[in-house]
């Protein structure tokens, strides 16, 4: 009986230590890592493509898939509304903010990134229009494919994506070609 009691006391001590380690070390550490990761997801230069691969879809008509996809792309902190035109396979996103508030350079870079991501993942998406208060930007599949010089769905793995898409967005001249 005494042996069992000793074992119980040892187990309870292990339990208390494990609980403290989880509560005061592991959880705060994970939380900080998650916050850092989330912050990276709001920037096209550090966004993780793996985070959106599950939203691959053949059709633009899946509204919840579209909304979830853009929740995980840069500019996800800006309130927005969607309009889908399934006949022409067009998507329009109304951002409820101004370029001036968000930062023009960031918006330009993130819109290119979001467009290439969405078109790579949604097979029949032909055109995306982004409307801000006072500004409208239109991206077509043809234009995106020409400038990236690739079939977009073939870019969808971490290495190719980093090399062919993300690294190019560091170059502001490359980004500006989408706005000429």
């Amino acid at each position: 009986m005494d042996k069992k009691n000793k074992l119980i006391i040892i187990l309870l001590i292990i339990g208390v230590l494990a609980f403290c380690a989880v509560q005061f070390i592991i959880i705060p550490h994970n939380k900080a890592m998650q916050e850092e990761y989330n912050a990276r997801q709001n920037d096209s230069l550090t966004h993780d493509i793996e985070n959106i691969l599950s939203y691959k879809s053949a059709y633009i008509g899946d509204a919840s898939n579209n909304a979830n996809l853009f929740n995980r792309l840069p500019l996800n902190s800006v309130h927005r509304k969607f309009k889908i035109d399934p006949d022409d396979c067009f998507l329009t996103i109304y951002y409820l903010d101004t370029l001036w508030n968000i930062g023009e350079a960031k918006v330009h870079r993130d819109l290119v990134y979001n467009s290439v991501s969405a078109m790579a993942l949604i097979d029949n998406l032909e055109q995306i229009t982004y409307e801000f208060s006072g500004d409208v930007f239109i991206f077509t599949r043809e234009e995106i494919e020409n400038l990236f010089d690739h079939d977009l769905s073939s870019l969808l793995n971490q290495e190719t994506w980093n090399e062919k898409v993300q690294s190019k967005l560091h170059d502001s001249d490359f980004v500006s070609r989408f706005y000429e």
Partner: protein
Amino acid sequence: MDELKKYTEALFARQPQTSKVQDLKDEIYGNLLAKKQDLISQGYAESEAIAKTKDSILSVEGIIEGNQLTYINRFKTECWQTLLLYGSILWILSIPTIIMARIPFSIITFFTVVFFGISYLNSKKNNQDEVAFVNEGRYKKMSRTVWIIWCIFFVVSTVTVTAVMFGSNIWFVRPIRITGPYAFASVAVRYYIPAVTVLLPIAIGSFPKILAYNERKDYNG
């Protein structure tokens, strides 16, 4: 119902209603009737004969098959201690699930440990030398029942989790994506929680062994 019949029923009131017990009950009732008749034939008045007959057998605990004279409080204390031991292991195993935001499971196991701990300490206060008859079959049956309930729970929860986690993937023909260790852990934890509760039927399953260990062996019936 005559008085000896009522008395016989009272003697067996706490015994399991099996066919063997029923046969024994009939046999004892027959013996009591015979004894009463014998006493009456010896010249005792009926009421006196009945009283003497009743005095001849005060309990049937010792003659029921499977009944074992046991240090009852030691047995109960060790049962609570075993539950506390396995409950503590279960609590430790539940702690990593907090990381996956499965906080209620950890809270439940913690309060289970508290409950087992209080029950164990209370049980220790009782007279540990007290003896009573305990039916080992009852505890074996309890152990089997708990295992059956746990198996049903485990199968149902595993099937439910699989249907909820992967049902839509199968239905909509989407690939099942586990993108990293965190995604794997969030799936695995749903199977892990029901699996670790196996410690409870293991603990309860050890009760018959604890009962055998606490038998008062110098008793000869």
